[in-house]
């Protein structure tokens, strides 16, 4: 669809110009990553995207976004520490007035770099705890991961950052929530986010393998509750329930084009970091257009603003101003039409697609993969080159 196609579409739809600023800017600085997580939300075909933006391009993106009113900045990837200009980008972002969040596995975070990032003005580090098979077993059984995370956690504390740990949960680790929380406690975490896998990208490809059963989710919630009640050192725990187990959808991104703007390593601007999968939208690139035009004028960013794009049951639903019909990417991935209601919603005619997936996960089976099941596909360059999104 072309630019400005929404204008005049409906009197109930705010004109694109009424959109507020992109308060949240996420820069996926690189798809390079030392890890191979099977639950990564990066696109399956990341190897086929264009070359990474250079330092000057990223600096220009930061300036343009800040001028539009962006204030929360996420630096992510891939592993953002792979970029050796990270300190330069942080320094400029700080000068511009961003609040800067680094999302990292900690791999590559040594004292030299954390000292440089701190003095450049980095505000916050979210340490993610990742990998599904080997590293989790390694963590549960031995020392290598514990040593890395302990070292990084000590650095984070030494440089007076709050210790924020993010753990992605799935079928293979969700039964270990109690141990994970004890581990987080030993690291001195102030905040722990137990985030159940969201099924996009590699995670969607591996959904059948990664989806926990309902009883696993219930046991994990109970273990979290027990841990919260244990007393001792304060540690805030957020348990993010997997949305497949819900009956109403999440207000994804507060509606596309509402507050969130992501830029991928090759400069593609997206209204959600998973939106690249949405068909029929010509996502603009920051190499060729400035962010003001991208945010306010491009067809890709205007398409899902307002509610003119909605179908029933969303269009006449009183909750449409609260949940915006849920997630467009999930609607597309599951139903083949991004304008459908997110099938997580029990009002969706496609809700069975979600309940069927949960029912499949509810089959009693051991945590380990049986020979008859599809193998777990790990995120890697080689796999990326052979898989189609």
């Amino acid at each position: 669809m072309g630019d400005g196609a929404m204008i005049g579409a409906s009197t109930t739809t705010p004109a694109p110009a009424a959109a507020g600023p992109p308060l949240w800017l996420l820069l996926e600085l690189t798809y390079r990553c030392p890890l191979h997580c099977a639950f990564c939300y990066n696109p399956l075909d990341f190897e086929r995207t264009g070359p990474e933006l250079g330092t000057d391009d990223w600096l220009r993106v930061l300036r343009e976004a800040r001028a539009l009113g962006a204030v929360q900045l996420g630096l992510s990837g891939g592993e953002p520490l792979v970029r050796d200009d990270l300190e330069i980008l942080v320094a400029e972002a700080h000068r511009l007035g961003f609040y800067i969040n680094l999302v990292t596995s900690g791999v590559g975070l040594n004292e030299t770099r954390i000292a440089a990032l701190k003095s450049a003005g980095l505000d916050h580090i979210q340490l993610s705890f990742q990998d599904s098979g080997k590293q989790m077993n390694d963590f549960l059984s031995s020392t290598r991961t514990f040593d890395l995370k302990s070292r990084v956690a000590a650095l984070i504390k030494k440089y007076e950052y709050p210790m924020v740990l993010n753990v992605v949960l799935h079928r293979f680790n969700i039964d270990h929530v109690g141990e994970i929380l004890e581990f987080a406690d030993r690291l001195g975490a102030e905040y722990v986010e137990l985030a159940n896998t969201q099924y996009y990208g590699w995670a969607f490809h591996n959904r059948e393998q990664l989806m926990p059963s309902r009883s696993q989710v219930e046991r994990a919630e109970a273990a979290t509750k027990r841990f919260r009640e244990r007393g001792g050192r304060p540690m805030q725990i957020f348990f993010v329930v997997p949305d497949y187990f819900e009956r109403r959808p999440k207000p994804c991104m507060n509606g596309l084009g509402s507050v969130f703007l992501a830029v991928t390593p090759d400069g593609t601007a997206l209204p959600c970091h998973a939106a690249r999968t949405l068909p029929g939208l010509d996502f603009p690139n920051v190499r060729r257009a400035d962010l003001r035009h991208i945010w306010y004028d491009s067809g890709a960013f205007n398409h899902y603003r307002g509610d003119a794009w909605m179908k029933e049951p969303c269009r006449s639903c009183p909750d449409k101003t609260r949940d915006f019909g849920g997630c467009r990417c999930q609607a597309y991935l599951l139903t083949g039409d991004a304008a459908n209601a997110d099938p997580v919603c029990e009002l969706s005619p496609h809700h069975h697609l979600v309940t069927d997936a949960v029912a499949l996960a509810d089959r009693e089976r051991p945590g380990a993969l049986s020979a008859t099941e599809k193998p777990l596909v790990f995120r890697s360059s080689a796999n990326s080159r052979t898989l189609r999104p």
Partner: protein
Amino acid sequence: MTVPAVDPTPPFDPAARPALEPRFRLQWEPAQNAHVLLYPEGMIKLNASAGEILKRCDGHSSIAEITADLERAFATTGLGSDVMAFLAMAQGKRWVTVP
């Protein structure tokens, strides 16, 4: 319009010096025409009076001084109970510490 009752036991000593919690950053955002509180992966947009009070919570000024400064700045009087009530709320949300 109701006249707020005078609280015989204000929640804080007027000599106390409130300070923003270190995990927050207070900032004026022209694009939102508001002060905002920034914290890890989040933001609270403040209304005008909240912003005016919080920007004076520097850990050096007492509640009495903050109140007097606000009354001067806005050419009014009787803000004491509003400031106390806001600080009680802000401490409850852990935006500020009032020692």
